[in-house]
């Protein structure tokens, strides 16, 4: 098949050209190490207090179970919660923790609170507050949060002792006679926000960590009586570096840089080896050539992105929360955009050096505009229309016309916040549709310039 012949020809040329192969393999490693070096040691800003909204739908511990626990001090004293929890539920406990958690370092305890908490009764009002950026994130506790917590505790007990709490009956001086503890109960705390907003990104990371510690502690039996004694003491925000947050942006930057390499190869065929004249005089149709080049670009990008991803996970400490394969799918879709840019550049420039250099010059600001490294200035075009992964409607801003902006958002949501590719459908659509439109026009432009126009001597 001619399209594959073209792709294979490009790949053979690249793989046999040692310098290109070195660049191909070393570029992602270099990029990963460079960014890790630049941002890996930079901790998140500990001076910030993040404002979070709370919707507490938790219905608490069931009345029957709560009454029984109150009547059984032996059991209650061996559980990691007290009567206050029985009255208000675990969500309220957790809200207290959020209200009082302060930044801590190894050396000293600061007085700076991590969160300022606002409670809302109506989720819509809370979401509106997020959309208007009055709060950085909205945390929604589900109705069965307390039961889920008890279930986790009960399951952990079973895991350690091969018996559920409510089945305990062998002690000579005590046996359980109350209603059953919940088992296998599931629910999910929603953390809603704009994944493209840097304050949300940091607040979400801290919240996730606190939830994780809280869940671990709630399962433990050795916190007899009283409050959970929850503390952020063993954790400092230095564990989270800017590198973690910008890594999805680095991936998109790597994809964007492919445009330069691709354009350089195409321009070389036009201006240096002049082999485009042979292609043009043959029976190869422009679309076959373009398709072959596109396959080549996909293969190269896939190799480079895989190297970068593996390197980041294995050597640079990046810990993806979500599905890496789904992230790779988003990146592969973004290559359509890069391919379109490559054809545009190859249609404009007449020297591979100029094409490569110009691509580097153009792709860096494009990455910044896409919010790859830091949040781009907000220039709203349409307020509150664009659906985010967590179901909000955020402003459609100027940079949203770039597919790369949506690629960054989708990757952040998937890799950092554990959303699925279906959750970020809007971003995915805004990656692929404008990219396909641009690819269509860039193919026409390239065909007109290189398959129809003059090929000078």
């Amino acid at each position, binding site marked *: 098949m001619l399209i594959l*012949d073209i792709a294979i020809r490009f790949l053979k040329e690249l793989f046999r050209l040692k310098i290109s192969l070195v660049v191909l393999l070393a570029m992602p490693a270099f990029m990963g190490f460079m960014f890790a070096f630049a941002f890996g040691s930079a901790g998140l800003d500990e001076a910030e207090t993040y404002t979070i909204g709370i919707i507490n739908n938790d219905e608490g511990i069931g009345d029957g179970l709560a009454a029984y626990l109150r009547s059984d001090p032996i059991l209650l004293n061996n559980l990691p919660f007290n009567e206050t929890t029985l009255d208000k539920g675990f969500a309220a406990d957790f809200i207290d923790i959020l209200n009082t958690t302060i930044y801590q370092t190894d050396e000293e305890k600061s007085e700076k609170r991590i969160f300022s908490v606002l409670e809302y009764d109506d989720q819509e009002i809370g979401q509106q507050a997020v959309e208007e950026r009055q709060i950085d994130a909205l945390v929604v506790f589900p109705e069965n949060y307390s039961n889920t917590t008890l279930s986790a505790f009960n399951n952990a007990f079973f895991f350690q002792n091969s018996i559920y709490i409510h089945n305990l009956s062998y002690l000579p001086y005590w046996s359980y006679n109350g209603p059953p503890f919940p088992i296998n109960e599931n629910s999910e705390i929603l953390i809603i926000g704009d994944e493209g907003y840097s304050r949300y990104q940091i607040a979400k990371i801290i919240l996730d960590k606190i939830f994780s510690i809280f869940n671990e502690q709630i399962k433990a039996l050795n916190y007899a009586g009283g409050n959970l004694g929850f503390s952020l003491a063993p954790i400092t925000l230095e564990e989270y570096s800017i590198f973690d947050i910008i890594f999805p942006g680095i991936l998109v930057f790597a994809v964007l840089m492919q445009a330069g390499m691709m354009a350089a190869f195409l321009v070389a065929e036009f201006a240096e080896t002049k082999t485009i004249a042979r292609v043009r005089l043959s*029976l190869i149709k422009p679309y076959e050539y373009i398709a072959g080049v596109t396959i080549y670009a996909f293969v190269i990008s896939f190799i480079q992105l895989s190297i970068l991803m593996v390197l980041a996970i294995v050597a640079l400490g990046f810990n993806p929360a979500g599905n890496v394969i789904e992230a790779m799918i988003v990146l592969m879709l973004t290559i359509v955009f890069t391919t379109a840019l490559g054809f545009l550049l190859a249609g404009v420039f007449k020297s591979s050096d100029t094409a490569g250099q110009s691509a580097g010059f153009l792709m860096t600001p494009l990455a910044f505009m896409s919010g790859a490294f830091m949040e781009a200035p907000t220039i709203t075009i349409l307020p509150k229309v664009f659906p985010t992964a967590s179901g909000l409607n955020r402003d459609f801003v100027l940079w949203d016309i770039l597919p790369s902006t949506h690629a960054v958002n989708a990757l952040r949501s998937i890799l950092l916040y554990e959303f699925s590719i279906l959750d970020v459908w809007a971003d995915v659509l805004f990656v692929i549709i404008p990219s396909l439109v641009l690819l269509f026009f860039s193919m026409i432009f390239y065909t007109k310039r290189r398959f129809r126009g003059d090929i000078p001597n």
Partner: protein
Amino acid sequence: MQTLSELTDIAIEVTNLTKTFGKGEQKVEAVKGISLTVKKGEIFGFLGPNGAGKTTSLRMIVGLLLPDEGKVTIFGMDPKDGKNSKTLKKLLGIIPQEISLYEELTVEENLWFMANAYRIQKESAANRINNLITKMGLDSKRKSLVKNLSGGLKRRVNVIMGLVHDPVLVLCDEPTPGLDPQSRVVVWEFIQNLPKEGKTVILTTHFMEEADRLSDRVAIIDHGEILVLNTPKKLKASIGEGDLLEFDLADDSEEHLQKMADLLKGFTTSKGLTVEDAYISEGRMVMRALNVIPNLAQILNRIEEHGAVVDNMAIRNTTLEDVFINLTGRALRN
């Protein structure tokens, strides 16, 4: 697609072909309304100095450049007509001036890519590729990467790349610059044999020997215009009969050389010498005459009597270079 026998006897007809590059003060008229006809089965040479418009004309004929004006028909077909595109691509083969090969592929891989590009059946492609490789003396290099070949071998591969699909019309754009003598002979013989396979060849060159040796007819082109068009023999005859005698004089000032040339113009002897013409070319005095050899002593006497000291002297036949000089007043390489 038409069969060979169905093709018209006129391979190419070009009418008033014009091409201008640049704008304003940078404007260059590369080709100024050339018209010509190439017959089926002939080798048609375009001879002219660099920048004369040969390659531009050729690229307009194959469609790599769009003419500003004029018309091209190839075997009676208009290349602008989309429905002829596929047929014409199969009929046309180009050997470009620059070496345009995939350097990181082997010789065979290059040829196979072109075979696939022309959608040639695998079996006939294999035969054709083997045949071309053998004809060009590249058997031992078929698995070599092109980048590892010498310039001469690359040039040989460059020649056969455009012929994998067995075209009937071959356009050779300066096929031998920079070639070692051995490779040049191989390429020349290859091109010379193409008409025997029923192919028509258009050859552009600035080597007068190449044009003279290979072409059935030659168009001499300069500054984008065809100056003359005929067989090499007739072109040479057109500037007069006789041999050429070239003198290197000790005083090679233009004034002195011109004085000696004027002295020899029209000089006759009883032994049948008649100097048809005498002129200066590239610091030498050149004269053309019949019966030069029996009259050498008298010619030398005549100029030495008038104060010329001859450092060197050579007798040669008329070449297309002389035709060009006669037409333009300057040598091809100038």
